[in-house]
């Protein structure tokens, strides 16, 4: 479990806080989504968790331990993070790349042993990338590369997994496949923290949603509680409606064109 308690972050020289009083928990066995518009503080949350950004106030705990009290390696043994962007300057074999996920457990000198190789293999099976273990990373498509990165995170064998906008460059099928994978990982008992602005997909796959707005929690709870049109219009500063998805019954957000929305308002009057 990862818990954020009253977390406040201010970037150097910034007049306002990037995160202000953010509290929530990502529990084992659940997908907890953090959503919000650009600049709402989603990625800052990940940076704070990795201690890349110091906190002004508050605390982050991983499995009950304050992150400032444990080593960076210990954090990496407990939480695997797939960051938003990653471009390899020097391509490498997929198998070698996934094996980098074992480093937090190997330290600087211990060489990989049978359990490490087994963890790498099972991570590659789980993320369905085993078939291209011998390919070079620069030959992968966008969807394959994201799955390979998740395989590396799974090789860490951490009990929590953080994904920062994992589907940004993926088409519909790859996006769905990735969300299905994430959902099944949570069912295995992993605490998944999913940072995403794909609200409609989040509503279908997450157990709970934390909606950030200008660094504060605007709403949190079950997707149907958070996906309320007046709230989302305020947060996203854009006219929209929330309907029920006819196929699966989950709440679904439809942004409107400005002209259409004025017609829509007139009709409602």
């Amino acid at each position: 479990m990862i818990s954020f308690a009253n977390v406040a972050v201010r970037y150097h020289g910034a007049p306002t806080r990037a995160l202000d009083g953010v509290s929530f928990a990502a529990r084992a066995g659940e997908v907890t989504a953090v959503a919000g518009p650009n600049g709402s503080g989603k990625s800052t949350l990940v940076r704070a968790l990795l201690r890349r950004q110091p906190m002004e106030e508050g605390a982050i705990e991983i499995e009950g331990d304050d992150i400032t009290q444990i080593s960076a390696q210990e954090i990496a043994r407990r939480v695997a993070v797939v960051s938003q962007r990653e471009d390899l300057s020097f391509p490498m074999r997929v198998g070698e790349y996934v094996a980098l996920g074992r480093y937090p457990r190997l330290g600087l000198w211990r060489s990989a042993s049978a359990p490490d190789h087994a963890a790498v293999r099972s991570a590659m099976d789980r993320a369905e990338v085993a078939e291209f273990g011998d390919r070079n990373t620069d030959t992968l498509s966008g969807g394959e590369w994201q799955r390979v990165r998740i395989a590396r995170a799974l090789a860490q064998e951490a009990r929590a997994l953080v994904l920062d906008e994992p589907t940004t460059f993926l088409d519909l099928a790859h996006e769905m496949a990735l969300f299905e994978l994430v959902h099944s990982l949570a069912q295995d008992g992993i605490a998944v923290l999913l940072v995403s602005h794909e609200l409609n997909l989040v509503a279908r796959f997450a157990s709970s949603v934390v909606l950030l707005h200008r660094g504060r929690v605007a709403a949190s709870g079950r997707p149907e509680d958070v996906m309320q049109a007046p709230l989302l219009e305020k947060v996203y500063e854009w006219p929209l409606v929330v309907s029920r998805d006819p196929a699966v019954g989950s709440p679904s957000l439809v942004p409107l064109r400005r002209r259409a929305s004025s017609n829509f308002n007139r009709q409602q009057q």
Partner: protein
Amino acid sequence: MHHRAWHWIAMGAVLAALAVISLGTGVIHIPAGEVVSALQGSGDAATVSIIRNLRLPRIVLAALVGAGLGMSGSALQGTLRNGLAEPYLLGVSGGAAVGAVIAFAFNATNDGIIALAAFAGAGVAVLLALLVARAAGRAGRGDPRTLLMAGVVIGAFANAVIMIALANAPPNTIRGALWWMMGSVADSSWAALPWIAGFIALGAGLLIYWAREIDLLALGDEPAAALGVNVESSARRIYLLAALLAASTVAAAGLIGFVGLIVPHIVRAAGIRNHRPLIVGAGLVGAALVISADLAARTIRPPGELPLGAVTAVLGVPFFLAQLRKSA
């Protein structure tokens, strides 16, 4: 170990063969068989003396310089995530040359002191490059491209400092400084070798120890941090070790460019990507490259010698342009 053993056998064999050829080549040609027996101390006394006292120190120095530059370049390319990084282009070697020239101008003759002065100069150059990159870039350790540019500027600055130091210097200092600018392994002797060997062994050992951190730094700051690396302190440590290696080579043989650029690419082309084997391989290939370049320097226009730094630059500039085109 998934690196095929024949890579290592090939690298070792090429290095040994080049060393034997190079030992046999000179004003007096000595066949390979006699070279090998002279190394073991048997055969004609004059031949043994030429091989052991005159040519071997030179070959050993060339190998050490090449190994140091190759390993330094590998570490810098991985940490900066940039296939164009190397100590010469980053101004590290230039800073080291300034340190060495200043020590030389103060009549320092002890090789250890000159090496320390070179390391101090290289350290200042690295520090300046990081400061410039940080001032120009965003937070953290700055943008790799900015750092490369900062390095080029610092290299130019180092040249200026050397020229100013030379402007009113006595002829002796000028000759010494010029020697540093052109690079050479010709003045090698057994007495001077332990210093550079010690510094290079130290730098190499520590780099190999921290090689896994370079693997992770090569992924980028965020992924490295996510895998448990303290990015800033780790990167700083690697820069300083790369600077130590480069400075040792500058103190012993002057400015030799582009070896650190070319060598890591050759080793990566053999399929070796993890930095521990990459750094070891770069040491072997770097040694082979500088031995070859030195062989070329003293055989192209006999009986005179070409400056070693000029030979490596002639090899390196087209390579640099090809890399630049690939990365653009």
